């Protein structure tokens, strides 16, 4: 398994634990963490745990299921950087109630999503073209 994909899965687990801790602290005392905590918790779990886990697993299995290499390793590397720059920025934005940070982080997270989507489409498309040729 490619190191980048193992990083995605590992980071997903770290985000999962972090998001869970945020929820527990909020349940203990809502004033313990400043800012928009429910939104932060939701996005850490969805963009952090679930999406990073899907990134790591899908980047590994989809090319194998298709029988073709990933369209672009570089796109996948940038996807890792952008996803992991975007979510922390969004978290900072919710902690400080600063929409600017949230928007900046959101743009980066979205860029990672687009890179992933295009990379997967182009990988699967290569598979389909080849099967038509055969």
């Amino acid at each position, binding site marked *: *398994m490619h190191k980048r994909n193992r990083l995605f899965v*590992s980071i997903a*687990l770290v985000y*999962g*634990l972090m998001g869970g801790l945020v929820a*527990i602290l909020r349940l203990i005392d809502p004033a313990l963490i400043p800012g928009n905590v429910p939104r932060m918790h939701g996005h850490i779990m969805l963009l952090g745990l679930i999406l990073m886990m899907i990134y790591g697993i899908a980047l590994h299995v989809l090319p194998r299921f298709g029988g073709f290499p990933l369209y672009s390793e570089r796109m996948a590397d940038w996807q890792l950087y952008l996803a992991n720059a975007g979510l922390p920025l969004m978290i900072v934005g919710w902690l400080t109630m600063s929409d600017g940070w949230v928007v900046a982080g959101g743009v980066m997270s979205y860029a990672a999503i687009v890179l992933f989507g295009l990379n997967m489409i182009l990988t699967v498309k290569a598979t389909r073209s080849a099967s038509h040729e055969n």
Partner: protein
Amino acid sequence: MKIELLVNSGCSACAQAEAIWRLVADERELELAVLDIAQTAGAARVAQLALKAVPALLVDGELKAVGVVCLEDARQLTQAAPLKAHAMLSRMGMFFSRENRWFIVSAQIYLMLAGIGLVLNGSLLSDSASRPAFLHLFTLGFMLFMIYGLGAHMLPRFTGNPLVEGSAGAWLQMGLAHLGVTAYAAGYLAGWQALTLGGAVCAWGSLLIFSLRVWPVLWSSQRN
């Protein structure tokens, strides 16, 4: 178990013997020493045993064979040594282990329970007071249980590193996860904050155990 293979760098049979023993050493917990008879340690062993030919094989200091031992015989000779963990993995089938099967089955049950929120509230994200209960039946119950079951099944196969199946850790993770989801949802539905908090702590504990279980699978240098 200690395996000593005495070889000569210019001998093709020795290279063949070394390749076979490296394969066996990859499968079994044993100490393999390949000694070149042109070097001091190898020469001393040859003199001590009065050997006339190489490759020669010593198992725990006892001369067992002179010449190339085929792979089958090498495996026979080392049967007493325990299998390495990844070799055990390669003997695993492709089917779900018992606990992973339970994780997947449980996920579907939680999905059906979460769906009741759709019927009652018209949305998983409704403004109803029961929203967190149904939302977390979906996220903690369905999604997290799917990650547990599929992750524990697939990651060892993707990395080539083993995950101990049926361990106490796996079942503790399962117990905490069930306790967590049900207590969390019940706490919200009953309006009992302490139960919700207890559920959240249990669910977090299950994720911590899962992370500790799969971390070596992801980062062990054995196969990566």
